[in-house]
């Protein structure tokens, strides 16, 4: 038996569980409508869940990107201070973040797709709810008891199948979210306390060294300025040794 027929059997089996076995076929229309409304609520809740999951991933990606940008800036600063070793280290750490970022982007894409599909499912169901509300009353009014038996049975099966499909879509989205939550949790921990934050923490080692280099430069500059100031007062003593404001600022003479 082909896959399409088998899938049809599976959906049928799921659908049968949804069907209320009402004695009166007219009554089953109302029950189905009720189920349809509940189903729509479920899909909407699922859309909200997916959206929350997506936002969480976006937040993580932003944090991670921020750290990558910061490392990039540190590399630039280090180079400006002639500390190629530090620049290299910062770039290496930045490169180590790339796979994590790529992973987040993939997850984001997946969850965004799920979100779109669920929104479409919700819209379809909403359309069906509206259409069914009218149709069920028409059916109740028009059909004779004999006709009602088959026609209503058909409509109820049809609507149940839609609910079965929507139910599977919701389940699927939920499964995806669950597996992502686990990874997102691990990433949160990593971002909050683990290796990632330590790399770019304001007091991390790269920054500390850069700060030190920069502080030394500042001190040198200040010192030079002071000397110059004194030099104007006593040019004979200092002027010769320090003709202009010296520029060790870019020469990074911090101890290794």
């Amino acid at each position, binding site marked *: *038996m*082909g896959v*399409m027929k088998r899938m*049809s059997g*599976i959906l049928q*089996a799921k659908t049968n569980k949804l069907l209320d076995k009402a004695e009166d076929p007219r009554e089953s229309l109302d029950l189905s409508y009720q189920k349809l409304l509940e189903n729509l609520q479920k899909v909407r809740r699922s859309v909200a869940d997916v959206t929350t999951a997506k936002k969480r991933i976006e937040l993580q990606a932003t944090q991670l990107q921020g750290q990558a940008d910061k490392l990039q800036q540190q590399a630039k600063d280090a180079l400006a201070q002639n500390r190629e070793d530090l620049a290299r280290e910062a770039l290496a750490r930045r490169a180590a973040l790339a796979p994590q970022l790529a992973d987040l982007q993939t997850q984001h894409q997946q969850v965004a797709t799920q979100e779109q599909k669920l929104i479409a499912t919700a819209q379809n169901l909403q359309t069906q709810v509206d259409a069914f509300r009218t149709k069920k009353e028409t059916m109740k009014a028009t059909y004779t008891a004999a006709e009602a038996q088959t026609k209503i049975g058909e*409509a*109820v099966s049809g609507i149940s199948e*839609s609910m079965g499909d929507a139910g599977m879509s919701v389940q699927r989205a939920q499964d995806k979210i669950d597996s992502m939550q686990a990874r997102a949790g691990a990433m949160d921990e990593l971002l909050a306390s683990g290796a990632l934050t330590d790399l770019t923490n304001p007091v991390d080692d790269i920054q500390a060294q850069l700060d030190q280099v920069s502080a030394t430069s500042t001190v040198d500059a200040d010192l030079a300025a002071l000397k110059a100031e004194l030099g104007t007062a006593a040019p004979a003593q200092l002027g010769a040794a320090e003709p202009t404001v010296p520029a060790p600022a870019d020469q990074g003479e911090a101890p290794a």
Partner: protein
Amino acid sequence: MIVRILGEGQFEVAESDRPSLHELETTLDTTIEGDDEAAFTSALAALIAEVRRLGTPLPADSFTSSDRVIPFEDAGLDETKALLSEPGGDDH
């Protein structure tokens, strides 16, 4: 015949187009049996594209059951196999 693409909706496909779909379905069956993920993905895409091409989407107020059901467009091989092992999918 009525064909449902899971997560998308129902399509009315003319009886005369049945052989064309059947051929694509057989290919899909083979990829599932052969456990070939890449081939499965492209066979599924081909089948879905054909249903969309040949079929007419059913209006929202049609409320009818489907004769054939196609997995979700982005379904994976493992997911599909798991689904096929659920009640109703085993035999006639």
